[in-house]
């Protein structure tokens, strides 16, 4: 043992210093290791790729070390290898390993290592890469044959498909690199060509053609296809891109679009529910295949089990269904469903009797019984495709094979797997009938799957590719039906003909967000969103957002509630308030979403590990005591007697890298089933493996990691860290801290603060705050004005808020460093005095120091874009810019250049000044003429603006002008500010510095905050932030406020004391107004304040008189239309109650839409010109004033054949 230890210490002397003084090595307990120990040995080099894994393209290629042959890098690997040999090798290092590692120092360093490999938006990128590398090929393979109906001799076969890199496609020169920035500026789409290789039947021989383009695929930024992938900071800068930008979105028609993560109930899994009111138990399966998505239920009615499905008009007794699928013996049915358990047999008896009562004993009888009950639509669908009338038996067989439980395949009419599946469902229903607790929780995160961009795009591609093929076939038929063709049959040119259905489908769907795929019955709106660029955090928060498919109006609380199983997976704080509360969630920091892993190798492995194949077993053997069923992705594959050992071995193999690390396996003891899952969309996160009460990761490993010699992948491949999904987490015993590790512990958390997401991670000391305050901050952090990206000044966005002098927070968190908030901050460290000052600070209002404001506190820029496309019309004429002669309004044209009729950067534009003098052709339909009419673009808002940029470019249709205007704003009364603790307030007063209080060093606060903000809000975190911030300022260091950790209050107080301040953070202040010392000590120090985007200048509005709506002649609505201020229903009620009739008359009619009209007293209809059109006389016509809306109503009613009459009365 000692010889093994010695070299290890030499290799890593620093790390061993803490443990070298440990006790003498204990005697090693010889372990009867499993026979698979040879397999478990870690493999170091990535060169030996996993063969069992079918997902080769997705293998992270980050392990550069083993690829290049530099001696230093190899040395690093050898150190790691040595460490591994001690950890595993011939058990020698086990004792050495176990003694010295009381706590793994800096184990949180695994988190930055994880993020380096995975990134914050890895789930989007992985999903898209999976689609491009794997899924798209599968779709092609499934639709590879296009055969002509006219002449089946001719065909086109797709051999391969691949997607190129984004390039400027309309130039005929060599392919130009198309950067995302160029697409944003020119309003074009960042997309890459899709190429296929085809083989087709020529006139006499088969032809092949490579690289035929079939469409353009929008490319996700930073994915494998994107030019930004693996670029360093300077390369990114060269392309006009920000290195902090997470990517994961698309640029379509110049706008950045995100496909949000969608949360769904998992497909192809049995979910058992109970309705206690109706005393019903239902097992539900949503079968999802490439063809269709159907739901199958096994439900109870009067204690009997039925199969429910849309294909059938009524409930089918389960026994009849099973008999129709070939299990005719009652005993076999009983055994398959109930086993030997008498409780189940008793409960199932009634169902068996029912089948007998219906006189179905043979398979044929059962099929006939079902065939008579197949819903007419279904029968037509099935029959129609064969063009002949089918017998009921055939119809029933068809429905059972294809529609019921569609995801269980029926090959060569072998119904056995489907029978077993149906029996499993029935058994689950029986279990829930007998024991109410055996139902599933729909809100349990383990029963959820997340659908990402890749899946949605693959759905879209499959649909549009099928459309493409059917159109191709039509064109093919058209050519082939001609007897004499001009030239030989050329499939390549045929493909290029016709529109571009694939490209347009992608662009249309992503830019509108409507996924409407008739073929798959998918009809979804609002799938994509514009990436919010209000602040860096807003953009980042959008990438981790998960939207739920539940309706917002439903009053059930279950889906909205915080689920215990979302610990570490979904952020507990970051959810919106109001209607979407709890339905929109955010991913936590360390989560990963899986992509599909092929299950064939898993099946093979399971059988090798001793699983007995289900097809060799009878029901009798399935449910014997001690037997565990094994399910892979929801299908029963077999049983095992040694459940624990099987699971343990399987996990060992996974840790050794023999399967994908994202395969999960766990035992459900209630159902006595082992579940193996490899499907996509499961949420999982990494955890440190603990064995025999000792975490596998030690300080030595961390040292190598910190030295940059190893990456996160090494930890993963060497079996020190593994991914657990929610279900497997439930089967593990996870310690949060090392001190909590006991004998049974299986895993250790990497770092507790990773239960929070990226947005909630900005809050310092969130564990000291009342929880809703953290939620409020999560909403407000997205509205904070700050730096957005390194390329913020080159961007031309519709609306961009930038802070002039942003600062990184004094009190930061680990998360802040990880997401880069300290490099792109949104706020400033304000010195805050928590005290009352004047009366202008009630209701959370803040007092600002004028001198601070003068020096740039809270100053921001507002950049706005105006896009002016130069339209081209049908007759070839197009709009142009010009300099008018003579000038209509010389003042308004002061900055317009004679050469091009546009303003230039640097100009100041006042209200109604012209920015671009555009001219539109008078005749846009007929032959093009020379006549133009001016249609200038003017500045509409009252505040003057500066022109920041004038950009001209050639867009996808015609030339395009974009003007960026700028405004610099200093804080004013009513502007909104907030700290990072959900404490928002408006500026109530700006006070001259002379009137502000000051301490004995002459420090004057930037902000005075009213202390009444604290008691009810209980934001203790904010108080500690002030204390830590003050200590940080005095010590010249940044302090940490990381969740469940951070700088301790005691230490902070000590720093304050050392610097001659009160330990409590309170200072003696002198009033600036009276010059007297304050009567109390004031809590005084820096707090990070955010300026929020809601500013008075954008909201301030009043009008004396102004525009009216055309239809009703009432004042328009809204500030943008210079609208009036509404005297609403409730205000009206007040005036009625008070009896202020004249005021009412004035507000509701005279100042609004008074209309002088005439009414005929005899008939009560409206007249005009002293003439009643009905009475044909002017006798009783009198004048009166009514609201125009009333007149309109009368006329509209008359238009609907209702005659309202106005009956006059004398007013006295």
């Amino acid at each position: 043992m000692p010889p093994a230890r010695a070299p290890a210490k030499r290799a890593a002397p620093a790390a061993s210093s803490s443990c070298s003084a440990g006790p003498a090595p204990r005697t090693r307990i010889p372990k009867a290791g499993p026979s698979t120990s040879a397999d478990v040995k870690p493999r170091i080099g990535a060169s030996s790729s996993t063969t069992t894994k079918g997902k080769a393209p997705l293998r992270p290629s980050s392990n550069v070390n083993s690829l290049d042959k530099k001696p230093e890098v190899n040395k690093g690997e050898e150190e790691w290898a040595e460490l591994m040999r001690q950890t595993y090798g011939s058990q020698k290092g086990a004792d050495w390993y176990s003694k010295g590692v009381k706590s793994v120092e800096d184990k949180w360093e695994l988190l930055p290592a994880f993020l380096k490999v995975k990134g914050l938006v890895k789930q989007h990128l992985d999903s898209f890469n999976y689609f491009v590398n794997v899924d798209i090929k599968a779709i092609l393979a499934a639709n590879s044959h296009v055969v002509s109906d006219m002449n089946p001799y001719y065909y086109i076969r797709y051999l391969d498909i691949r997607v190129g890199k984004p390039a400027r496609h309309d130039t005929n020169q060599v392919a130009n690199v198309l950067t995302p920035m160029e697409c944003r500026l020119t309003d074009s789409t960042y997309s890459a060509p899709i190429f296929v290789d085809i083989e087709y039947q020529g006139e006499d021989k088969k032809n092949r053609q490579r690289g035929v383009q079939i469409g353009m695929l929008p490319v996700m930024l930073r994915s494998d296809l994107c030019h930004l992938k693996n670029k360093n900071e300077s390369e990114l800068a060269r392309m006009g891109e920000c290195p902090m930008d997470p990517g994961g979105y698309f640029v379509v028609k110049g706008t950045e679009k995100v496909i949000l993560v969608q949360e769904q109930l998992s497909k192809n899994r049995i979910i058992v529910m109970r309705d206690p009111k109706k005393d019903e138990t239902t097992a539900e399966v949503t079968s999802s295949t490439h063809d269709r998505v159907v739901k199958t239920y096994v439900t109870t009615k009067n204690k009997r089990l039925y199969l429910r499905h849309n294909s059938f008009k009524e409930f089918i007794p389960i026994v009849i269904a099973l008999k129709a699928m070939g299990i005719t013996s009652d005993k076999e049915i009983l055994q398959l469903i109930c086993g030997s358990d008498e409780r189940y047999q008793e409960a199932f008896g009634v169902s068996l009797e029912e089948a007998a009562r219906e006189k179905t004993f043979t398979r044929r009888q059962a099929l006939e019984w079902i065939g008579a009950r197949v819903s007419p639509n279904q029968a037509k669908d099935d029959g129609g495709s064969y063009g002949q009338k089918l017998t009921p038996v055939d119809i029933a067989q068809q429905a059972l094979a294809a529609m019921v439980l569609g995801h269980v395949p029926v090959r060569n009419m072998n119904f056995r797997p489907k029978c077993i599946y149906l029996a499993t469902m029935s058994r689950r229903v029986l279990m829930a009938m007998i024991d109410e607790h055996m139902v599933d929780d729909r809100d349990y995160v383990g029963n959820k799957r997340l659908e990402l961009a890749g899946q949605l795009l693959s759905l879209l591609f499959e649909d549009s590719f099928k459309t493409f093929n059917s159109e191709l076939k039509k064109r093919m038929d058209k050519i082939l039906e001609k007897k004499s063709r001009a030239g030989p049959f050329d499939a390549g040119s045929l493909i290029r003909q016709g529109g571009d259905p694939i490209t347009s489908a992608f662009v249309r769907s992503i830019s509108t967000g409507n996924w409407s795929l008739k073929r798959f019955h998918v009809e979804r709106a609002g799938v994509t969103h514009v990436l919010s660029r209000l602040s860096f955090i807003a953009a980042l928060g959008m990438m981790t957002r998960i939207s739920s498919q539940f309706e917002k109006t439903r009053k059930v609380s279950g889906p909205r509630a915080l689920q215990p199983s979302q610990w570490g997976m979904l952020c507990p704080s970051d959810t919106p308030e109001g209607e979407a509360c709890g339905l929109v969630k955010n991913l936590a920091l360390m989560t990963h979403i899986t992509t599909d892993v092929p299950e064939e190798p898993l099946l093979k492995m399971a059988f090798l590990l001793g699983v007995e194949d289900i097809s060799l077993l009878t029901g009798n053997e399935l449910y014997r005591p001690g037997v565990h069923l094994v399910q892979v992705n929801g299908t029963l594959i077999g049983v095992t007697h040694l459940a624990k050992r099987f699971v343990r071995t399987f996990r060992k193999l996974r840790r050794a890298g023999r399967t994908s690390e994202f395969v999960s396996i766990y035992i459900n003891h209630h159902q006595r089933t082992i579940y193996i899952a490899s499907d996509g969309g499961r949420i999982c996160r990494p955890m440190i493996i603990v064995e025999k009460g000792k975490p596998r990761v030690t300080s030595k490993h961390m040292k190598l990691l910190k030295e940059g010699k190893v990456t996160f992948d090494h930890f993963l491949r060497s079996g020190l860290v593994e991914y657990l999904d929610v279900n497997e987490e439930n089967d593990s015993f996870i310690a949060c801290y090392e001190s909590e590790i006991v004998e049974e512990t299986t895993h250790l958390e990497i770092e507790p603060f990773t239960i929070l997401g990226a947005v909630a991670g900005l809050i310092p000391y969130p564990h000291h705050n009342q929880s809703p305050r953290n939620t409020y901050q999560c909403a407000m952090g997205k509205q904070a004005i700050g730096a957005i990206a390194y390329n913020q000044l080159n961007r031309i966005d519709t609306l961009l808020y930038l802070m002039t002098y942003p600062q990184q927070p004094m009190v930061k968190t680990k998360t802040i460093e990880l997401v880069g908030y300290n490099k792109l901050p949104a706020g400033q460290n304000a010195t805050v005095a928590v005290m009352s000052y004047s009366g202008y600070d009630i209701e959370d209002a803040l007092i600002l120091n004028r001198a601070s404001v003068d020096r740039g506190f809270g100053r921001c820029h507002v950049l706005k874009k105006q896009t002016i496309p130069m339209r081209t019309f049908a007759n070839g004429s197009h709009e142009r810019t010009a300099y008018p002669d003579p000038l209509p309004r010389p003042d308004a044209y002061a900055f317009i250049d004679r050469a091009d009729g546009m303003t230039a950067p640097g100009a100041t534009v006042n209200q109604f000044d012209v920015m671009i003098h555009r001219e539109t052709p008078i005749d846009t339909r007929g032959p093009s003429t020379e006549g133009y009419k001016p249609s200038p673009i003017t500045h509409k808002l009252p505040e003057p603006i500066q022109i920041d940029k004038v950009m001209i470019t050639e867009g996808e249709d015609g030339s395009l002008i974009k003007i960026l205007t700028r405004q610099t704003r200093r804080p004013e009364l009513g502007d909104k500010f907030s700290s990072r603790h959900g404490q928002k307030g408006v500026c109530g007063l700006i006070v001259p510095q002379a009137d502000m209080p000051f301490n004995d060093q002459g420090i004057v606060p930037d902000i005075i905050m009213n202390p009444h903000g604290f008691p009810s809000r209980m934001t203790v975190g904010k108080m500690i932030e002030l204390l830590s911030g003050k200590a940080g300022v005095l010590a010249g260091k940044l302090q940490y406020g990381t969740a469940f950790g951070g700088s301790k209050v005691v230490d902070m107080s000590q720093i304050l004391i050392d610097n001659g301040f009160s330990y409590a953070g309170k200072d003696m202040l002198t009033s600036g107004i009276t010059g007297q010392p304050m009567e109390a000590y004031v809590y005084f120090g820096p707090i990070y304040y955010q300026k929020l985007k809601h500013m008075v200048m954008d909201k301030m509005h009043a009008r004396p008189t102004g525009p009216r709506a055309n239809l009703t002649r009432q004042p328009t609505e809204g500030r943008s239309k210079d609208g009036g201020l509404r005297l609403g229903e409730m205000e009206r009620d007040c005036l009625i109650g008070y009896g202020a009739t004249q005021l009412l008359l004035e507000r509701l009619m005279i100042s609004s839409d008074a209309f002088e009209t005439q009414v005929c007293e005899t008939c009560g209809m409206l007249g005009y010109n002293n003439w009643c059109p009905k009475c044909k006389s002017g006798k009783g016509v009198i004048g009166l004033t009514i609201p125009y809306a009333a007149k309109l109503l009368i006329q509209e009613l008359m238009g609907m054949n209702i005659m309202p009459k106005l009956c006059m009365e004398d007013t006295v």
Partner: protein
Amino acid sequence: MSQQADRYSQQNPNPMPARSIPKPPETIEYICGDCGAKTAMKTSELIRCRECGHRVMYKPRTTRIVRYQVQFEAR
């Protein structure tokens, strides 16, 4: 140009001593968004940098004298 003078005398009663205002050029040299080269273009021409073929062009800063109005703060 006379309109310009009017504009400023209106706004500011005590203008700076009269300066020779550079005459705006007849054709404007636009700046390429990629390489920074200047390209003179007419409105009717295709928008493209002569040097690198990039198609995003920016207008250079105005030659006119700009006087910023002082933004009065709210009291």
